[in-house]
């Protein structure tokens, strides 16, 4: 204290330390009855990285950053851009556009798009190649709307053990929006898919600096033409009734309901019908999962080279506690409302259960409004912690197909499809 005062001028001492000096004196006079044993501490920054153990935080530990058309998000990487959504943004069923996570694969992403020249090309193995302008999409087709969760394949990758290289996402690489646009099938029918076609490939405005023919040059994703998800796909020009932020794929992006975000091509420019299977890096080498139960394996099995892999597809069922988030201590007897979101790529949420004893006993939560099978479903449960102590709240969801969130993690080399039951410690203090 003395050295601090010595370094500080009289005025600053008054402004900064006056209060604390008074508080100390106050404690002396009153004998400290009921006062905390320690001085309030200054906030400490979160570490720059986590590991080699699992990330102990809900989000990744990156710094806050401001980006164009965005509220403050959590920085993973700056070029290519990867930004994570903070936990509190999931207190509503629809994630605000300005808080929606961002993930690009290549460094050349659009700062500006000129709609005078932007066209969506439908090409390849089709009868009539076509070019669609932004007004074409808004006026020549029937507008359809769908609420759908967009989740990065590597959401929660930082929970893997052992840790794997890749974007070290916490659990905020997801969001739900109301997407409005045109049915992909309608566009494909307009161009006329030729007999014998196998896949449809998507490409957007993102470009890379690497040599031609490599994954570092172009980002290309494909879906089988006989995949039923194609009937549900939308080429979306509207996100939550607004134009898409540039970082989320303005002017249009592909929406693949129930599928991981890798297929949701941003700044879409090409819908290309293929008469052979796409063997580019992003299909053949990246975003592949072991063809095993829960798409899980071990580092040892992977090294053996005998694990068959398939392209990643639908999102397994997940649920999250959003509030309370453990950032505050709760007085005993306080009527809390546990709340959060749940979703599944397998069509809707049937049930969400909560536990206040770390998963020993469960009770049903109340489900919020149903915005369709691919949307976030809000859930809530009232809970009054009876006495002081450390409680572990857990939440698990069951989807429409009967899949229940398991209480075990997965491991695969890409760090994909984490969906273990989430837990949150809540510290409850004496209320008197």
């Amino acid at each position, binding site marked *: 204290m003395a050295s601090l005062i010595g370094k500080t001028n*009289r005025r600053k*001492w*008054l402004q*900064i330390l*006056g*209060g*604390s*000096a*008074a*508080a100390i004196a*106050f*404690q002396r006079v*009153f004998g400290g009855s*009921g*006062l905390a044993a320690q*001085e*309030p501490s*200054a*906030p400490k920054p979160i570490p*720059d*990285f986590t*590991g*080699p153990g699992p990330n102990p935080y809900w989000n990744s530990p990156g*710094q*806050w*950053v*401001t*980006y*164009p*058309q965005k509220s403050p998000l959590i920085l*993973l*990487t*700056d*070029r*290519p851009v990867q930004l994570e959504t903070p936990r509190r943004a999931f207190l509503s069923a629809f994630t605000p556009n300005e808080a929606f996570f961002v993930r690009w694969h*290549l*460094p050349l*992403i659009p*700062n*500006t*798009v*000129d*709609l*005078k020249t932007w066209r969506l090309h439908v090409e390849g193995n089709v009868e009539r190649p076509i070019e669609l302008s932004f007004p074409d999409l808004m006026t020549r087709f029937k507008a359809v709307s769908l609420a759908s969760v967009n989740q990065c394949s590597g959401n929660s990758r*930082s929970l893997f053990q052992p*840790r794997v*290289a890749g974007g*070290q996402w916490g659990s905020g690489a997801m969001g739900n929006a109301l997407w409005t646009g045109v049915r992909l099938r309608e566009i494909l029918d307009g161009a006329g898919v030729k007999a014998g076609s196998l896949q449809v490939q998507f490409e957007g405005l993102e470009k890379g*600096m*690497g*040599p031609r*023919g*490599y*994954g*570092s*040059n172009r980002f290309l994703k494909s879906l089988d033409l006989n995949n039923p998800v194609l009937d549900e796909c939308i080429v979306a020009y509207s996100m939550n009734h607004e134009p898409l932020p*540039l*970082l989320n794929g303005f002017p249009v992006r592909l929406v693949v309901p129930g599928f991981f975000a890798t297929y949701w091509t941003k700044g879409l420019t090409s819908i290309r019908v293929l008469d052979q299977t796409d063997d580019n*890096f992003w299909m053949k*080498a990246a975003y592949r999962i072991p063809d095993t139960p829960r798409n899980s394996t071990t580092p040892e099995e992977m090294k053996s080279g005998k694990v068959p892999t398939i392209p990643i597809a639908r999102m397994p069922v997940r649920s999250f506690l959003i509030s309370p988030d453990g950032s505050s201590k709760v007085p005993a007897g306080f009527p809390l409302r546990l709340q959060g979101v749940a979703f599944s790529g397998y069509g809707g949420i049937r049930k969400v259960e909560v536990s206040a004893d770390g998963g020993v006993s469960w009770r049903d939560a109340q489900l919020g409004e149903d915005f369709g099978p691919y949307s976030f479903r809000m859930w809530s449960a009232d809970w009054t912690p009876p006495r002081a102590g450390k409680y572990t709240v857990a939440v698990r969801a069951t989807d429409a197909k009967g899949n229940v969130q398991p209480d075990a993690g997965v491991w695969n080399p890409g760090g994909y499809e984490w969906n273990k039951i989430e837990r949150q410690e809540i510290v409850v203090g004496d209320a008197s």
Partner: protein
Amino acid sequence: MRRFKWPGITILSLFLLAAIALRADFRAGYYAPTEPGAMRQALPDVFSTDANYSAGQFPLLEPALATGDGKETLEADCSLCHTPRFVTMQPPLPAETWAAEVEKMRKVMGASIPDDDAKKIVEYLSAHYTPETRKR
């Protein structure tokens, strides 16, 4: 110390009065001197009415890589496609994982990194970014 006596007593008196009025034990008035945050609000955009839709430039937020042999080689050979934040973001990874990553960038991603450089980069990553060696 003497010259701080009067302001101290004045504040103490005000504080005591406030505390008695509120009838609760609490601690108040602690402020930690802190660097002002780097995060500033951006000025709202001024738009034209043409068909251009712009987000402006995206911020480049280069991280501080550990100093040591090979740092400049890494920066020179890897920055074409991504910033070094792709290194600093990772958890501490074993040396063989770093070697595999550098190999993947060369063989699978087509990065033109000469053999000598690749060796230097792996040595640098092993010296600063493994569970045994990572400091920050």
